[in-house]
Protein backbone atom coordinates (compact mmCIF):
# COMPACT_ATOMS: atom_id res chain seq x y z
CA UNK A 1 0.00 0.00 0.00
CA UNK A 2 1.26 3.46 -0.91
CA UNK A 3 0.66 6.40 1.38
CA UNK A 4 -1.45 9.09 -0.28
CA UNK A 5 0.76 11.99 -1.34
CA UNK A 6 -0.16 15.27 0.30
CA UNK A 7 -1.13 18.01 -2.14
CA UNK A 8 1.13 21.01 -2.48
CA UNK A 9 0.10 24.53 -1.56
CA UNK A 10 -2.07 26.54 -3.92
CA UNK A 11 0.01 29.46 -5.20
CA UNK A 12 -0.66 32.51 -7.33
CA UNK A 13 2.59 33.79 -8.78
CA UNK A 14 2.62 37.30 -10.14
CA UNK A 15 5.52 37.53 -12.56
CA UNK A 16 7.61 40.62 -13.23
CA UNK A 17 6.36 40.68 -16.85
CA UNK A 18 2.80 41.14 -15.54
CA UNK A 19 1.55 37.61 -16.21
CA UNK A 20 0.11 35.41 -13.52
CA UNK A 21 0.33 31.67 -12.92
CA UNK A 22 -1.90 29.83 -10.48
CA UNK A 23 -1.45 26.25 -9.52
CA UNK A 24 -0.35 23.59 -7.09
CA UNK A 25 3.25 23.79 -5.92
CA UNK A 26 4.83 20.52 -7.00
CA UNK A 27 8.47 21.17 -6.17
CA UNK A 28 10.93 23.86 -5.15
CA UNK A 29 14.22 23.59 -7.04
CA UNK A 30 17.44 25.52 -6.56
CA UNK A 31 16.44 28.46 -8.77
CA UNK A 32 12.89 27.75 -9.84
CA UNK A 33 9.45 26.61 -8.79
CA UNK A 34 7.52 23.82 -10.45
CA UNK A 35 3.77 24.33 -10.52
CA UNK A 36 0.88 22.30 -11.85
CA UNK A 37 -1.05 24.97 -13.73
CA UNK A 38 -4.60 25.14 -12.47
CA UNK A 39 -6.11 25.99 -15.86
CA UNK A 40 -4.06 24.02 -18.42
CA UNK A 41 -3.12 21.10 -16.14
CA UNK A 42 0.46 21.31 -17.45
CA UNK A 43 3.66 21.53 -15.44
CA UNK A 44 5.06 25.06 -15.46
CA UNK A 45 8.57 26.00 -14.36
CA UNK A 46 8.94 29.53 -13.06
CA UNK A 47 12.41 30.92 -12.83
CA UNK A 48 13.39 32.74 -9.66
CA UNK A 49 14.37 35.83 -11.65
CA UNK A 50 10.88 36.27 -13.06
CA UNK A 51 8.91 36.20 -9.79
CA UNK A 52 7.32 39.43 -8.58
CA UNK A 53 5.12 38.17 -5.72
CA UNK A 54 3.92 34.81 -4.48
CA UNK A 55 0.52 34.52 -2.91
CA UNK A 56 -0.16 31.42 -0.83
CA UNK A 57 -3.88 30.74 -1.16
CA UNK A 58 -5.08 29.24 2.08
CA UNK A 59 -8.20 27.19 2.48
CA UNK A 60 -10.80 28.76 4.71
CA UNK A 61 -12.96 26.24 6.46
CA UNK A 62 -15.49 28.40 8.27
CA UNK A 63 -17.85 25.51 8.83
CA UNK A 64 -15.21 23.50 10.67
CA UNK A 65 -14.35 26.57 12.77
CA UNK A 66 -18.02 27.11 13.54
CA UNK A 67 -18.48 23.45 14.48
CA UNK A 68 -15.44 23.37 16.71
CA UNK A 69 -16.48 26.65 18.36
CA UNK A 70 -19.96 25.29 18.95
CA UNK A 71 -18.64 22.12 20.55
CA UNK A 72 -16.04 23.87 22.73
CA UNK A 73 -18.25 26.86 23.65
CA UNK A 74 -21.35 24.77 24.17
CA UNK A 75 -19.43 22.18 26.15
CA UNK A 76 -17.79 24.69 28.48
CA UNK A 77 -21.09 26.59 28.84
CA UNK A 78 -22.94 23.39 29.64
CA UNK A 79 -20.40 22.37 32.27
CA UNK A 80 -20.40 25.83 33.89
CA UNK A 81 -24.20 25.89 33.91
CA UNK A 82 -24.40 22.42 35.39
CA UNK A 83 -21.76 23.19 38.00
CA UNK A 84 -23.81 26.21 39.15
CA UNK A 85 -26.54 23.84 40.28
CA UNK A 86 -30.29 24.43 40.55
CA UNK A 87 -31.76 27.94 40.49
CA UNK A 88 -34.93 28.48 42.46
CA UNK A 89 -37.04 31.45 41.49
CA UNK A 90 -40.67 30.80 42.44
CA UNK A 91 -42.88 29.98 40.63
CA UNK A 92 -40.08 28.68 38.40
CA UNK A 93 -37.42 26.23 39.25
CA UNK A 94 -34.45 25.65 36.98
CA UNK A 95 -32.61 22.42 37.43
CA UNK A 96 -28.87 22.18 36.87
CA UNK A 97 -29.66 20.57 33.49
CA UNK A 98 -31.85 23.56 32.50
CA UNK A 99 -29.03 25.91 33.44
CA UNK A 100 -26.56 23.75 31.53
CA UNK A 101 -28.78 24.08 28.41
CA UNK A 102 -29.08 27.85 28.88
CA UNK A 103 -25.34 28.34 29.26
CA UNK A 104 -24.58 25.92 26.44
CA UNK A 105 -26.82 28.05 24.20
CA UNK A 106 -25.13 31.36 25.08
CA UNK A 107 -21.58 30.01 25.07
CA UNK A 108 -22.32 27.91 21.97
CA UNK A 109 -23.25 31.02 19.95
CA UNK A 110 -20.18 32.82 21.27
CA UNK A 111 -18.07 29.77 20.40
CA UNK A 112 -19.40 29.73 16.83
CA UNK A 113 -18.56 33.42 16.39
CA UNK A 114 -15.05 32.98 17.81
CA UNK A 115 -14.50 29.79 15.78
CA UNK A 116 -15.49 31.45 12.51
CA UNK A 117 -13.33 34.52 13.24
CA UNK A 118 -10.30 32.33 14.05
CA UNK A 119 -10.84 30.21 10.90
CA UNK A 120 -11.14 33.31 8.74
CA UNK A 121 -7.93 34.76 10.17
CA UNK A 122 -6.12 31.44 9.78
CA UNK A 123 -7.33 31.10 6.21
CA UNK A 124 -6.19 34.53 5.12
CA UNK A 125 -4.00 34.41 2.01
CA UNK A 126 -0.36 35.29 2.51
CA UNK A 127 1.48 37.42 -0.04
CA UNK A 128 5.27 37.25 -0.24
CA UNK A 129 6.96 40.03 -2.23
CA UNK A 130 10.14 39.01 -4.09
CA UNK A 131 11.26 42.30 -5.60
CA UNK A 132 14.11 43.88 -3.63
CA UNK A 133 14.86 40.74 -1.61
CA UNK A 134 18.44 39.59 -1.19
CA UNK A 135 19.57 36.12 -2.31
CA UNK A 136 19.67 34.85 1.25
CA UNK A 137 16.14 36.12 1.92
CA UNK A 138 14.91 34.44 -1.27
CA UNK A 139 16.56 31.17 -0.28
CA UNK A 140 14.87 31.44 3.12
CA UNK A 141 11.49 31.89 1.40
CA UNK A 142 12.26 28.90 -0.86
CA UNK A 143 13.06 26.78 2.20
CA UNK A 144 9.68 27.63 3.70
CA UNK A 145 7.92 26.95 0.39
CA UNK A 146 9.69 23.59 0.10
CA UNK A 147 7.77 22.38 3.13
CA UNK A 148 4.54 23.26 1.33
CA UNK A 149 5.43 21.49 -1.93
CA UNK A 150 4.02 18.13 -2.98
CA UNK A 151 7.55 16.79 -3.48
CA UNK A 152 9.56 18.09 -0.58
CA UNK A 153 13.01 16.78 -1.41
CA UNK A 154 13.30 17.81 -5.07
CA UNK A 155 16.71 19.08 -6.22
Amino acid at each position, binding site marked *: MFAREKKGADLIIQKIDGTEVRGELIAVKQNSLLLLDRFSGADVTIDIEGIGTIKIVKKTNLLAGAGLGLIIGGGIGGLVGFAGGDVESPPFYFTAADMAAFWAFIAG*IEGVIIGVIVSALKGKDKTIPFIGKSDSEIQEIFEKLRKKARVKNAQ
Partner: protein
Amino acid sequence: MKKVFLNLLLIGLLLGGVFQQAQAQDKKQDVNLNVGGLTNQSFTGPIFTLGAGADIHLGKHVMISPEFQLWSSELRLDILQLNLGAALNFRLKIFFVGGGVNIPIIHTSTKTDVFGLISAKINVGLRINRIKLTAYLLTPFEDFFECIQVGANIGIVFYLKSP
Protein backbone atom coordinates in the same frame (compact mmCIF):
# COMPACT_ATOMS: atom_id res chain seq x y z
CA MET B 1 -39.64 58.47 33.81
CA LYS B 2 -39.61 61.88 32.10
CA LYS B 3 -35.94 61.35 31.26
CA VAL B 4 -36.63 57.94 29.72
CA PHE B 5 -39.38 59.37 27.52
CA LEU B 6 -37.11 62.21 26.42
CA ASN B 7 -34.38 59.72 25.56
CA LEU B 8 -36.91 57.61 23.72
CA LEU B 9 -38.16 60.59 21.76
CA LEU B 10 -34.62 61.63 20.88
CA ILE B 11 -33.65 58.14 19.70
CA GLY B 12 -36.93 57.81 17.81
CA LEU B 13 -36.34 61.07 15.96
CA LEU B 14 -32.75 60.13 15.22
CA LEU B 15 -33.63 56.67 13.93
CA GLY B 16 -36.58 58.04 11.97
CA GLY B 17 -34.24 60.50 10.29
CA VAL B 18 -31.65 57.81 9.51
CA PHE B 19 -34.35 55.48 8.11
CA GLN B 20 -35.79 58.22 5.92
CA GLN B 21 -32.36 59.22 4.68
CA ALA B 22 -31.45 55.58 3.98
CA GLN B 23 -34.69 55.03 2.05
CA ALA B 24 -34.20 58.22 0.06
CA GLN B 25 -30.68 57.15 -0.88
CA ASP B 26 -31.83 53.60 -1.70
CA LYS B 27 -29.52 52.11 0.96
CA LYS B 28 -29.67 48.45 1.92
CA GLN B 29 -31.90 47.80 4.90
CA ASP B 30 -33.00 44.67 6.62
CA VAL B 31 -34.80 43.63 9.74
CA ASN B 32 -34.28 40.64 11.98
CA LEU B 33 -36.14 38.73 14.64
CA ASN B 34 -34.06 37.08 17.31
CA VAL B 35 -34.20 34.94 20.43
CA GLY B 36 -31.49 34.50 22.97
CA GLY B 37 -30.29 34.55 26.50
CA LEU B 38 -28.53 36.91 28.83
CA THR B 39 -26.96 36.52 32.22
CA ASN B 40 -27.95 38.63 35.17
CA GLN B 41 -25.39 40.55 37.20
CA SER B 42 -24.57 37.67 39.48
CA PHE B 43 -24.38 35.23 36.55
CA THR B 44 -26.95 32.98 38.24
CA GLY B 45 -30.48 33.25 36.92
CA PRO B 46 -31.14 33.28 33.20
CA ILE B 47 -32.77 36.17 31.37
CA PHE B 48 -34.47 35.17 28.14
CA THR B 49 -34.66 37.65 25.30
CA LEU B 50 -36.90 38.17 22.31
CA GLY B 51 -35.94 40.93 19.95
CA ALA B 52 -36.49 42.71 16.67
CA GLY B 53 -33.89 44.87 15.03
CA ALA B 54 -32.85 46.49 11.81
CA ASP B 55 -29.57 47.04 10.01
CA ILE B 56 -29.37 50.27 8.08
CA HIS B 57 -26.30 50.13 5.85
CA LEU B 58 -24.67 53.51 5.57
CA GLY B 59 -21.86 52.36 3.34
CA LYS B 60 -19.94 49.22 2.57
CA HIS B 61 -18.64 48.81 6.11
CA VAL B 62 -20.89 50.81 8.40
CA MET B 63 -24.38 50.11 9.63
CA ILE B 64 -26.65 51.51 12.30
CA SER B 65 -28.59 48.82 14.10
CA PRO B 66 -31.59 49.92 16.15
CA GLU B 67 -33.46 47.24 18.06
CA PHE B 68 -36.18 46.44 20.52
CA GLN B 69 -35.61 43.65 22.99
CA LEU B 70 -37.95 42.12 25.53
CA TRP B 71 -36.31 40.53 28.55
CA SER B 72 -37.89 38.05 30.87
CA SER B 73 -36.01 37.13 33.98
CA GLU B 74 -36.19 33.41 34.61
CA LEU B 75 -39.15 33.25 32.19
CA ARG B 76 -41.29 35.07 34.77
CA LEU B 77 -44.03 37.20 33.31
CA ASP B 78 -43.93 39.58 36.27
CA ILE B 79 -40.27 40.52 35.67
CA LEU B 80 -40.18 41.90 32.18
CA GLN B 81 -38.30 44.72 30.59
CA LEU B 82 -38.70 46.27 27.16
CA ASN B 83 -35.48 47.82 25.87
CA LEU B 84 -34.70 50.12 23.04
CA GLY B 85 -31.17 50.04 21.75
CA ALA B 86 -29.05 51.30 18.93
CA ALA B 87 -25.54 50.36 17.89
CA LEU B 88 -23.06 51.57 15.35
CA ASN B 89 -21.52 48.53 13.71
CA PHE B 90 -18.56 48.06 11.43
CA ARG B 91 -18.99 45.27 8.96
CA LEU B 92 -16.35 43.25 7.16
CA LYS B 93 -17.72 40.51 4.93
CA ILE B 94 -19.76 38.27 7.23
CA PHE B 95 -18.45 39.80 10.48
CA PHE B 96 -19.60 42.82 12.37
CA VAL B 97 -18.46 44.51 15.54
CA GLY B 98 -19.68 47.64 17.24
CA GLY B 99 -21.10 49.35 20.23
CA GLY B 100 -24.10 51.31 21.33
CA VAL B 101 -26.57 51.90 24.07
CA ASN B 102 -29.40 49.93 25.60
CA ILE B 103 -32.22 51.89 27.24
CA PRO B 104 -34.94 50.25 29.32
CA ILE B 105 -38.30 51.76 28.37
CA ILE B 106 -40.69 49.76 30.51
CA HIS B 107 -39.81 47.41 33.32
CA THR B 108 -42.29 45.68 35.51
CA SER B 109 -40.05 45.01 38.48
CA THR B 110 -36.92 46.39 40.06
CA LYS B 111 -36.32 43.12 41.86
CA THR B 112 -33.72 41.87 39.43
CA ASP B 113 -30.39 43.63 39.80
CA VAL B 114 -29.86 44.78 36.24
CA PHE B 115 -33.38 45.86 35.36
CA GLY B 116 -33.99 49.54 34.77
CA LEU B 117 -30.40 50.52 34.05
CA ILE B 118 -29.20 52.32 30.93
CA SER B 119 -26.25 50.34 29.63
CA ALA B 120 -23.49 50.50 27.11
CA LYS B 121 -23.43 47.59 24.69
CA ILE B 122 -20.53 46.02 22.83
CA ASN B 123 -21.46 43.43 20.26
CA VAL B 124 -19.76 41.14 17.82
CA GLY B 125 -21.34 38.78 15.39
CA LEU B 126 -21.76 37.03 12.10
CA ARG B 127 -24.29 37.31 9.37
CA ILE B 128 -24.44 34.40 6.99
CA ASN B 129 -27.28 34.79 4.50
CA ARG B 130 -30.42 34.99 6.59
CA ILE B 131 -28.90 33.90 9.88
CA LYS B 132 -27.51 36.47 12.27
CA LEU B 133 -25.58 35.42 15.37
CA THR B 134 -24.73 38.07 17.92
CA ALA B 135 -22.75 37.92 21.15
CA TYR B 136 -22.79 40.97 23.33
CA LEU B 137 -21.73 42.50 26.59
CA LEU B 138 -23.78 45.02 28.54
CA THR B 139 -22.49 47.25 31.28
CA PRO B 140 -24.60 49.90 33.03
CA PHE B 141 -23.20 53.43 32.82
CA GLU B 142 -23.56 53.83 36.57
CA ASP B 143 -21.42 50.74 37.30
CA PHE B 144 -19.27 50.92 34.21
CA PHE B 145 -17.47 47.58 33.79
CA GLU B 146 -18.08 46.75 37.44
CA CYS B 147 -21.35 45.09 36.55
CA ILE B 148 -21.25 43.05 33.36
CA GLN B 149 -23.84 40.93 31.62
CA VAL B 150 -23.09 38.70 28.67
CA GLY B 151 -25.61 37.50 26.18
CA ALA B 152 -26.09 35.97 22.78
CA ASN B 153 -28.88 35.60 20.32
CA ILE B 154 -29.70 33.95 17.05
CA GLY B 155 -31.83 35.75 14.53
CA ILE B 156 -33.42 35.43 11.14
CA VAL B 157 -32.98 38.27 8.65
CA PHE B 158 -35.62 39.67 6.31
CA TYR B 159 -34.43 41.94 3.53
CA LEU B 160 -36.25 45.19 2.89
CA LYS B 161 -33.95 46.05 0.00
CA SER B 162 -32.17 43.40 -2.03
CA PRO B 163 -28.63 42.73 -0.65
